[in-house]
């Protein structure tokens, strides 16, 4: 499929969504919704049929643009709720970048934990800790939201920092030692060899095992059969060798090419095997935060004298001007 078709479909979807927006004068929401649904369905169908003949670099630029643009909008938007929503957009775009970097587990954890939990907490607090707008001043922002504090100076500071970081990156990253790809691949194979169930499942799916064969034959002696993965000499394939400790290597099967360790498994090996204790540390951090939050929120707080006087004055003004019930 030509990508132009996909982009045309997406543009059509955009038109549909724009039409579906609530509007005062001409209400074409239903038509817009239908157009958007047709375009979206067509795009999904086309992508599935084309096997995602994708443009990975374009994805990077798109996600980076969305992340940075919404981050900019977040720090400039005067209304806190909108700022939080734009931050959620930044999070989603970052999750896209994580996906390009093949960190699938962290991408979805980011969406669930950050966008789903942390940002919702922020939204709750924004709604809790906001003065109720008075009747005649519904749209007026608070002073501290409407005006930035020394914007020029802060921008200079931020961009000097960015310039320093950028020049460091461009002079430093090219002098990094090159990566030992073969060692990394060998480590992945060694980790895959620790997962006999995965290998068995993969071999069975590729019809390389007979129906009555299993990798772990004796449940009482589960590690009797050792698995080694080694490259086939002179070839491009890998094969799995089953070593019976008593009788030596007895059988070798070539592994299907797509039977490789997955991101979640790599992360799990790194998390639980290479760095034991990380879960405990994370748990302690979370528990301390929970205790602190409980202690803080149990405290009874009296309104300041100053703030109380201000509040009564505002109430009096409201009553004078007719009040909300008048």
């Amino acid at each position, binding site marked *: 499929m030509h990508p132009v078709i996909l982009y045309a479909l997406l543009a059509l979807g955009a038109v549909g969504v724009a039409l579906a927006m609530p509007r005062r004068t001409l209400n074409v929401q239903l038509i817009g919704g239908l157009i958007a649904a047709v375009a979206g369905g067509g795009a999904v169908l086309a992508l599935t049929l084309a096997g995602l003949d994708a443009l990975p670099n374009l994805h990077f630029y798109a996600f980076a643009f969305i992340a940075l643009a919404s981050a900019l909008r977040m720090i400039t938007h005067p209304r806190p709720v909108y700022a939080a929503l734009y931050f959620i957009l930044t999070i989603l775009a970052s999750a896209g970048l994580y996906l390009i970097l093949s*960190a699938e587990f962290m991408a979805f954890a980011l969406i669930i934990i950050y966008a789903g939990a942390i940002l919702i907490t922020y939204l709750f607090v924004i709604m809790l800790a906001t003065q109720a707008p008075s009747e005649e001043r519904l749209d007026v922002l608070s002073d501290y939201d409407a005006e930035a504090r020394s914007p020029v100076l802060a921008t200079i500071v931020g961009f000097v920092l960015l310039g320093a970081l950028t020049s460091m990156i461009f002079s430093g990253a090219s002098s990094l030692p090159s990566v030992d790809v073969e060692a990394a691949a060998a480590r992945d194979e060694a980790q895959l060899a620790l997962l006999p169930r995965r290998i068995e499942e993969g071999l069975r799916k590729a019809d390389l095992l007979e129906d009555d064969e299993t990798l772990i034959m004796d449940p009482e002696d589960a590690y009797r059969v050792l698995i080694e993965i080694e490259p086939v000499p002179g070839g491009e394939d890998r094969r799995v060798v089953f070593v019976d400790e008593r009788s030596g290597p007895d059988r070798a099967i070539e592994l299907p090419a797509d039977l490789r360790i997955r991101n979640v498994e790599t992360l799990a090996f790194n998390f639980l095997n290479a760095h034991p204790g990380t879960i405990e540390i994370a748990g302690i951090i979370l528990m301390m935060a929970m205790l602190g939050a409980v202690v803080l929120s149990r405290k009874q707080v009296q309104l300041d004298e100053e703030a109380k006087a201000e509040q009564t004055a505002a109430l009096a003004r409201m009553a004078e001007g007719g009040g909300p019930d008048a």
Partner: protein
Amino acid sequence: MLDSVMPFFTLAQSSAPGPFETVTLNHYLFVSAAMFALGVIGFLTRRNLIIMFLCTELMFQAAGIAMIAFARYWLNADGQTFVIFVLTVAAAEAALALALVVLLFRKRETLSAEAWGELKG
């Protein structure tokens, strides 16, 4: 064997981001640095306590992107493991900071950071 895996496996190395051919480690580091700078600017300019904490979350996020990019570059999962800590610390910070913000709001009925300008120490 490795040749077939290479394009999915490595992140090319170069001195500066070229046009559209390859995306290098530097691209990701630049996005991360720009996001961090935006977070700093937001933290300095905004006067709303909640938005200031949101800006620290933005800086966390920038650090996370850098760590994931390095994890990919070195082909190991150490960076990804560390991002789990970033998430943990962000959650802990959200809980504590927001509890504090609610306390401060109850005391002064305002979210302005300047209302607390007389704090010493």
